[in-house]
């Protein structure tokens, strides 16, 4: 165990001016930052002289990861949340904006630059059935990162570190698991191996892309609790990507909500889930299964009639705020431009004209919908 406890080395002095995140959150310096990050995937033209087409997957996204804190990124499928994780893991290159690691912009796409970056930033994939190679043993999966990142040089060191990695993810007795193949393990055990593999690089940042959504319900919490514990032990900065806002509330200190490639709301998880401000967050919370509605008389038929339409195509997204075609409170200005960020206090912010003090065309003095008042 002790072989893996990291020394938190002295941070490089970060030169940052301006506040790109909720600086109140932590006294510590951020590890990883995305600043006005964009991603556009070009598409094949329909015709030779046709128009250039592209998928605008992520628009102007900023987020900050602090050591020892978990941030959840919540959104529906197609909201761009996985793209954000892959951009941060540098599996994709950004189309605009920048990524900063310990205050420095990351650059260079050479194998060497990427390897040294991934020594610090590791990604856990959603599907443990396809993220492990079926022809290799667990030992092999864990040996690779140890070798690649220069943490183990002899086979004794390797075995000792693999053992302690497996023990850290509660795969005990480690000797039994080491020489198994992925197909001999259950989904939960496989995801633990994937987590151990990410830890083998001794990262500072762990990006977890829907780490539990492929697992059986009864073992999801176990894996989430494991991630939580590892975060504490190693002082990891954790990005937890999920479509399940209830698990975001459970697991993460802060929650960011994304819709169709745009960040719409963020702040402390409790604030965001108990006092959602953006109409999309409200919709998401209303739609989430909630057993407490049982017996309250309204059941599934009550409320949530505002749930209309479906997420837009990102090839030709709606102008302005991309939520406006579905938004029950849409105003003319929502079509024109994306709302600026409004700070609501205690770290809670949203991008919505309803909360902007001096919106161009605010129809009334108190436009804030009272839709969620029963919560």
């Amino acid at each position, binding site marked *: 165990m002790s072989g893996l406890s990291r020394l938190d080395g002295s941070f490089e002095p970060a030169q940052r001016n301006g506040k790109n995140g909720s600086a109140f*959150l932590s006294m510590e310096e951020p590890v990883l930052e995305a600043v006005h990050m964009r991603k556009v995937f070009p598409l094949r033209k329909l015709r030779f002289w046709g128009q250039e087409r592209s998928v605008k997957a992520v628009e102007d996204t900023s987020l900050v990861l602090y050591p020892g804190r*978990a941030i959840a990124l919540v959104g*529906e*499928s197609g909201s761009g949340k996985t793209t954000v994780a892959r951009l941060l893991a540098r599996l994709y290159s950004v189309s605009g904006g920048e990524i900063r690691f310990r205050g420095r912009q990351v650059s260079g796409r050479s194998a060497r630059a990427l390897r040294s970056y991934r020594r610090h930033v590791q990604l856990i994939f959603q599907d443990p059935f396809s993220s492990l190679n079926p022809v290799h043993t667990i030992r092999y999966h864990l040996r690779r990162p140890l070798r690649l990142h220069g943490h183990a040089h002899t086979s004794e060191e390797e075995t000792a570190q693999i053992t302690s990695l497996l023990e850290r993810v509660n795969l005990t007795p480690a000797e039994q698991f080491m020489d198994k193949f992925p197909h001999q393990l*259950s*989904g*939960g*055990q496989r995801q633990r191996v994937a987590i151990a593999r990410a830890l083998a690089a001794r990262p500072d940042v762990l990006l977890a892309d829907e780490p539990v959504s492929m697992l*059986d*319900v*009864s*073992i*999801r*919490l*176990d894996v989430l*609790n494991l991630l*939580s*514990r590892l975060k504490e032990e190693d002082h990891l900065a954790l990005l937890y990507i999920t*479509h399940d*806002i*209830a*698990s975001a*509330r*459970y*697991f*993460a*200190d802060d929650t960011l909500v994304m819709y169709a490639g745009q960040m719409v709301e963020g702040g*402390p*998880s*409790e604030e965001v*889930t*108990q006092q959602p401000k953006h109409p999309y967050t409200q*919709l*998401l*919370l*209303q*739609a*989430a*299964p*909630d*057993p*407490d*509605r*049982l*017996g309250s008389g309204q*059941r*599934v*038929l009550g409320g*949530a009639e505002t*749930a*209309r339409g*479906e*997420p837009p195509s990102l090839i030709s997204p709606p102008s302005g705020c991309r939520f406006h075609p579905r938004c029950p409170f849409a105003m003319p200005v929502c079509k024109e431009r994306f709302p600026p960020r409004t700070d609501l206090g*205690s770290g809670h912010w949203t991008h919505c004209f309803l909360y902007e003090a001096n919106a161009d065309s605010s129809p009334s003095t108190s436009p804030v919908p009272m839709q969620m008042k029963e*919560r």
Partner: protein
Amino acid sequence: MVTQKTEKLLEVKHISVDYAMASGTLHAVNDVSFTLARGQIFGLAGESGSGKSTLAYAIARLLRPPAVVTQGEVIYYPRPRLDQPSDDEGTLPFDVMDLTPEELRPFRWRKLAIVFQSAMNSLNPVLSIGAQIEDVLKAHYPEMPTGARRDRAVELLRLVGIASDRLRSYPHELSGGMRQRSIIAIALALNPDVIIMDEPTTALDVVVQREILHKVMALRQEFGFSVIFITHDLSLLLEIADTIAIMYAGRLVETAPAEQLYRQPRHPYTDGLLHSFPTLHGPRRSMTGIPGSPPDLRAVPSGCAFHPRCSFAFGACQTVVPALGTPSADAPEQRVACHLYDASLNPAGIPEQLRSPGVMEEADSSLSVPKGEPR
């Protein structure tokens, strides 16, 4: 239509399904019995591999070798209907398992329809939605004139909330939610008494899922059909189902009215499941899930299949298979298969955790994971 939730519609008696494997026989469903009332929503919950889909397909007689129904009957109680005057099978109950292929044809779809999980795979990609609805009508009512068929197709699409100009759309032109709605429209085409829905919303986003559930509930209200709703998402089931049955390793371990199940789960597995999903309201507290993982059906533990994961397991659990019984005279509709409630086997009495009603409301355990909010 006024629905009498006490009128019997389907009685499943001691159904067992085996899969013949090269390495031996696998018992996917073991001696399952339940009763479905007219107009009722019956929820069937369980983890992957618990046999819930196999059970549903057995009821619909859809299983093909290597799956074999080894025992049991499914008694169907018909009711004369004005809209199907051509039915001449009378009103006597009959066993679905005894039907010949010729008798099965009118039974399926007119009496019992199925909505499969993957809408994309259950629609034919080269036929328009309209053609696929009309196809059903044509197959079952060949004498129906073309115009009437077209009108019925439009009506069905309208019922599920799709505009009639979509009649000529192909499946790929529709969004996931609309595809699932069309499937529901097709299932409704012949006004069945019972619809089996196998994870109908699992592949959809929460907002779309909520819309579709609304629709199903509204249609149920209007037409009074029963639903067997299969899902792994117990939190969803608690909201929509009247009665819930929990399956584990091919057996029913508990069945109760939804509210009763939520307020006072009796089986340790149900209790564990209820503690496996984080909630959106109430205090945030550490939750544990269920230790271990679901059993491999090729090697189901002896006695109660849940005993290796059960914190209350005692001697008899390892040897004797528990039968469904009524644990408390206060709740005659709640039945549970657990030795804890058998005083002759368990003289120590029922553990405190399962005795106190309102397990979900207790707020004794303080939040340890994740950490509280910095304010």
